[in-house]
């Protein structure tokens, strides 16, 4: 009888989850040394957590279904989180264990830089026209939390 997924596949999934959980612990360690409010945006925080660990970063990228180069762009503050794939980027923040209001604040800091840049260089580009992003993130966060066993 075909059960759709075998033990070898499960072991790969488990290993992927373990690497993401390692990164969550790494995020906790980073925040033990430095308060979240001192980070200049989500990209800055993400860069501090991921460091040079490409294997775990790849596992995180697969888990949130983002290309690795998108994560690289985020951590280099080269991508406005509100203009990117918001659900996947918010899931990054959720998996790293930060609270929704903290993620919104950090991502808003990144977004603010792009919005200011857009205002001076590309005033009518549409960049920055995402006032609903914080509300959308809150809804997404509620959905992420529905997968917790405490939501039963």
């Amino acid at each position, binding site marked *: *009888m075909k059960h*759709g*997924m075998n033990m*070898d596949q*499960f072991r790969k999934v488990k290993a992927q989850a373990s690497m993401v959980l390692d990164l969550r612990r790494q995020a906790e360690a980073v925040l033990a040394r430095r308060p979240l409010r001192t980070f200049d945006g989500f990209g800055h925080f993400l860069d501090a957590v991921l460091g040079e660990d490409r294997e775990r970063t790849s596992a995180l990228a697969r888990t949130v279904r983002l290309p690795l180069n998108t994560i690289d762009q985020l951590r280099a503050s080269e991508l406005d989180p509100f203009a990117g794939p918001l659900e996947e980027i918010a899931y990054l923040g959720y998996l790293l264990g930060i609270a929704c209001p903290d993620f919104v604040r950090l991502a808003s800091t990144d977004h603010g830089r792009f919005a200011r840049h857009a205002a001076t260089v590309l005033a009518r580009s549409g960049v920055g026209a995402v006032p609903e992003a914080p509300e959308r993130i809150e809804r997404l966060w509620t*959905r992420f939390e529905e*997968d917790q*066993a405490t939501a*039963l």
Partner: protein
Amino acid sequence: MSEIPSERFPLFDLPLLRGEQGDESVREAEWERVFAHFQPRLSSYFGRRADGIYVLDDLLQEIWLRACLNVRTLESASALWTWLVTIGNNLLRDELRRKKVETVPLEDRGDGLADGIDEFLGNLEHAPSGADAELLDDLRGKLTDEEWEFLNLLCVDNLTHEEVARRLNLSTAMASRQRLRRIRQRIAE
């Protein structure tokens, strides 16, 4: 590759699953026991429900991934089945939203617990030996003492409908099956 044989009513060690005790190999072995026990049931449960919405293999992998990622929120190993089903139903609902597929509203399918209970009772009706014991705890508050005893004979004592009918002085095995259907119907209401 050898699969771990599935036990009928296994007890799982929650601190091991949550990574709070044991070394890495012991924790991995406990997770593999959980997978071996629930994976065939999940595959069967979602095989039909995922049809046209999600590729079954992808759905099952995502369920297990999210379970591994969120396991520290699990407070009782007896809630494992209900939780896995809830994660799966959440994923199907997400996909339906994305695809805007016109299909049976999820409200009509019930939440994870309701689905799990219905599946549990459905399995009992057709094959008592194939049912889950975990959901008995979830059912307890919804049942009279008489119904509770009836389900325990079917599930925990593993009696057939014929044996239950004899034990409870029901006229026939059909009467036992009818009682089970009435319980299902009442819980559904």
